[in-house]
């Protein structure tokens, strides 16, 4: 198992998770837990506080980020942020699900997740909607590089390649 004890990010997650007393309100509020037991925010936090480990099965990718758990937690644990934190670590390790990598690539290439298309442009004209100014893609690239997103995408592309081999 990976030793997380010296990890700065793990320390931050652990600090955020510490108030949790495993009551289960988050799980019973989670819409995804309602349909599959795989996604359980309480168990994700339990790994951190009881086992001292960041969960690495990838269950947190099932989180819909609806923030119900965070809203209702009686101890004020920022659950949604912890789950995001786990996903960040998972991404850094090249384990992001393929659709997320694709979205990341789309953002890098076009500056948006739902990019313009001929069809959409026609619709806009038909409705009399204005042409929206397009963002400077150089700025997009700059942000990707400066914030390490580029590296995350790299890590994931590499992981996908490895799998294919």
């Amino acid at each position, binding site marked *: 198992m990976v030793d997380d004890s010296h990890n700065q990010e793990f320390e931050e997650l652990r600090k955020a998770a510490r108030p949790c007393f495993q009551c289960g309100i988050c799980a019973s509020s989670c*819409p*995804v837990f*309602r*349909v*599959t037991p795989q*996604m359980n925010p309480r168990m994700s936090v339990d790994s951190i506080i009881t086992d001292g480990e960041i969960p690495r099965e990838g269950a947190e*990718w*099932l*989180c*819909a*980020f*609806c*923030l*119900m758990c*965070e*809203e209702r937690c009686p101890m004020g644990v920022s659950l949604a942020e912890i789950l*995001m*934190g786990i*996903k*960040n670590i998972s*991404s850094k390790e090249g384990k*992001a*699900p393929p*659709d*997320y990598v694709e*979205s*990341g690539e789309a*953002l890098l290439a076009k*500056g*948006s*997740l*739902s*990019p*313009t*298309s001929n069809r*959409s442009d026609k*619709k*806009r004209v*038909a*409705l*009399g*909607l*204005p042409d*929206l*100014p*397009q*963002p*400077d893609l150089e*700025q*997009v690239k*700059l*942000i*990707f590089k*400066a*914030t*390490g*997103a580029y590296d*995350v*995408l790299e890590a994931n592309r590499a992981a996908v390649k490895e799998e294919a081999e």
Partner: protein
Amino acid sequence: MKYAFFPGCTMANRLQFAEKSVRMVVPEFGIELVDLAFTCCPEQNSVRSLSEDTWVTFAARNIALAEAESLDILTACAGCHESLTLAKYELDTNPERKEKANEILEDMGLEYKGTSSIIHVHQFLFDEIGVETISAKVVRPVPIKVVTHSGCHLLRPQKIMQVDDAEAPVKLDMLCEAIGMESLEYMDKVMCCGAGVRKTDSETSYAVLREKMTSITMVEPDAMIVFCPTCFITFESGQRVTNRLFGTEFKLPVFYYTELLAIAMGLPDTDMLLADHRVKIELPKFVDTKKEDSESISTGL
């Protein structure tokens, strides 16, 4: 009053008629919209999960664009609204983060200052304009029974978003009632539509949608009202996928609120809004007691 308009890429490129309805309605309340070169807000589920810094920096850039023009931002999508609002909260309360973001923004000639506020059309209509004023402008009420879905990202976390009560929201219902609708209470009113998990596992996402639709159809509404294009697409198109996957028979029309507001206010050319809906509804005939001829808006194909 001017706002920097932030339709979001989903609305701009996939739900154009919803954007049209917003643009039709807001000038009636004295608002002028300005379009700036925004990127994706960015969508938190996809981008924030890859990297927190990337998310906050994109958002900072978008807000900085508006600040450069001294404009507040008017959002129309709940996802965009939350992404920008939470990013603003982070930047305003965490000076290190702000500094880090500004270092990057400096290279593109921008600076995040924290001077622009971010408001969603929901807040604009309810808090700034008010249901009384809206009621007064209604010439053609829409007497249908509806359920409202404010959506996760407008409501939670309540202490930051401060749009409505996160457990028992009423504002969208009141907005609906202002234009003649009857808003029904239903179970799982604040439950998520399931969109957020679709990228990871679409079947799970539709299973969540099924739960929500089951609770909605229990009260037999004529339609449902949303204030977010992603929720719109999830409900309108998603219900078909759900039918396919689970054998259900959902067929509920969905409206983005300002579409019906435009109709209620008697604005011209509203049939082009409803033309692209996939689940059609015939709105009840409107009998204007003052006029001789009555008018109805039919959307049937």
